[in-house]
């Protein structure tokens, strides 16, 4: 009897220790995953690289090449399609130029230098933990390079999950899978070749499209975003857990005669933008749409169009758009 009791105690103790060790290991894995996640953006800011990757979403498969140069002048990048129309995107610290041969156009868009999210990828990983679970999945291999695979799993239905493969040598992201709630990949990006040379020539950043007869479009002179000068007619309530207002500004967008009110909500990893603009009621629209992993939802409120877009499930853009409403005194002000 006594032996049985001792044996039972021993088993309990051993089990307790095992659970403790497992729990500690899990915490350790999560911490390592956090470090890798934080390191991805840091690597992109400090490492020059070039490579070929494939982009897959909803049955479409495209091949693209990227040249990413980090120098004293900052980060410059050239991205061009190897399949389909020879589209190229070249960006530097102040603008992004899109060469679109299928439309015979070049679009130059000035970047928002004051973008508060620049380089914050994600700044506070701990802040993600209430809404995402981080896992160290294990070793992997992508583009012939040794990688570590980490998982970022949402804790609710308002965001997508991610699987990342991080290059052991450079910390760069080698593969990214955006996962649905059902565990199916929605959007995948994977390098098939990646080099991190010490030097990348400026010539490699020059667009190759001829573009002799392209039209050139660019935004007008002057700031395209300003802080609102008066209280907004709009209010926000009942956001999905974890989403907070990160940016509130008036934007001048091409095609809009008047400034558009822009609200950007972020949970630290995922962003949703809400655009509010006065609109002819005949041009208003309501409902859902999607491009790649980006969902959009629109609704008309009085004489305004409210539209939410973001890399989130449909339910999230709808919930956030519906959370934006005219305030008590907003109706008269908005009209």
């Amino acid at each position, binding site marked *: 009897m006594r032996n049985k009791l001792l044996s039972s105690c021993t088993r309990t103790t051993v089990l307790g220790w095992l659970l403790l060790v497992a729990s500690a290991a899990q915490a350790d894995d999560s911490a390592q995953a956090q470090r890798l996640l934080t390191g991805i953006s840091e690597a992109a800011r400090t490492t020059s690289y070039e490579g070929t990757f494939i982009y897959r979403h909803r049955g479409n498969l495209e091949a693209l090449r990227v040249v990413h140069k980090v120098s004293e002048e900052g980060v410059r990048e050239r991205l061009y399609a190897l399949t389909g129309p020879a589209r190229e995107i070249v960006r530097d610290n102040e603008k992004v130029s899109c060469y679109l041969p299928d439309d015979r156009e070049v679009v130059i868009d000035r970047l928002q230098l004051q973008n508060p999210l620049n380089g914050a990828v994600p700044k506070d990983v701990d802040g993600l933990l209430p809404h995402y679970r981080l896992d160290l999945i294990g070793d992997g291999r992508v583009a012939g390079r040794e990688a570590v695979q980490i998982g970022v799993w949402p804790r609710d239905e308002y965001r997508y999950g991610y699987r990342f493969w991080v290059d052991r040598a450079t910390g760069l992201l080698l593969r990214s899978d955006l996962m649905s709630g059902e565990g199916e990949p929605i959007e995948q990006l994977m390098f098939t070749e990646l080099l991190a040379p010490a030097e990348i020539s400026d010539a490699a950043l020059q667009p190759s499209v001829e573009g002799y007869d392209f039209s050139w479009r660019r935004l007008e002179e002057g700031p395209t975003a300003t802080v609102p000068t008066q209280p907004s007619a709009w209010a926000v309530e009942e956001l999905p857990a974890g989403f*907070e207002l990160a940016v509130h500004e008036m934007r001048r967008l091409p095609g809009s005669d008047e400034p558009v009110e822009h609200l950007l909500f972020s949970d630290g990893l995922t962003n949703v933008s809400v655009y509010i603009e006065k609109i002819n009621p005949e041009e208003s629209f309501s409902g859902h749409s999607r491009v790649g992993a980006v969902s959009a939802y629109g609704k008309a409120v009085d004489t305004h169009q409210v539209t939410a877009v973001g890399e989130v499930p449909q339910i999230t853009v709808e919930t956030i758009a519906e959370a934006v409403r005219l305030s008590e005194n907003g109706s008269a002000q908005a009209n």
Partner: protein
Amino acid sequence: MNTEEFKEQLSAFVDDELWAEEQAFLLRRLTQSDGTREQLARYYLISDTLRGNLGPAGSRGLSARVAAALEAEPALSGARQSWGSRLLRPAAGLAVAASVAALSVGFWTTQPQAPATSASQPLTAGAATSLISPANQTSSPTMPVSQHWERLDPEVQKRLNGYLVNHSEYSAERQVGGVLTYVRIAGQQNAE
């Protein structure tokens, strides 16, 4: 690019209002077309005349300026130019997404409009974050019910495409070293 746009581009070049990238393309075109070079020479002549810069030897400096500009083509690639005075035409700035064409935002489901309520807190400039209601009171929302699909009006598409491009600016730095957002623009030729 139609003739008028090209003339406008040449004129902007003479007025030093082109971005370096655009200059490089124009100069490459000039190297391959005698007619275009002559057209540019005429623009310089007009410009010099209008500004009273034409010296006693007439267009003496004209050919030299054009030649110098052509010779300097490689060096132009890194030069910074002002945004210039040529403004984006209405809706033209959405061309990024327009290029993505129907793929970008192609279809919408019809959706009943939710009534606005008045029990919310107003946003205020610069301090909106603190006025947001707590984010943890989500009340089991339901997925939207698709009724039927219909193609968007082109104007609506343009507006949505503009939102997508603008939103991308903020997401670019947060995903895959900035690549993924632009991949959606460059790599989606057959999307839905």
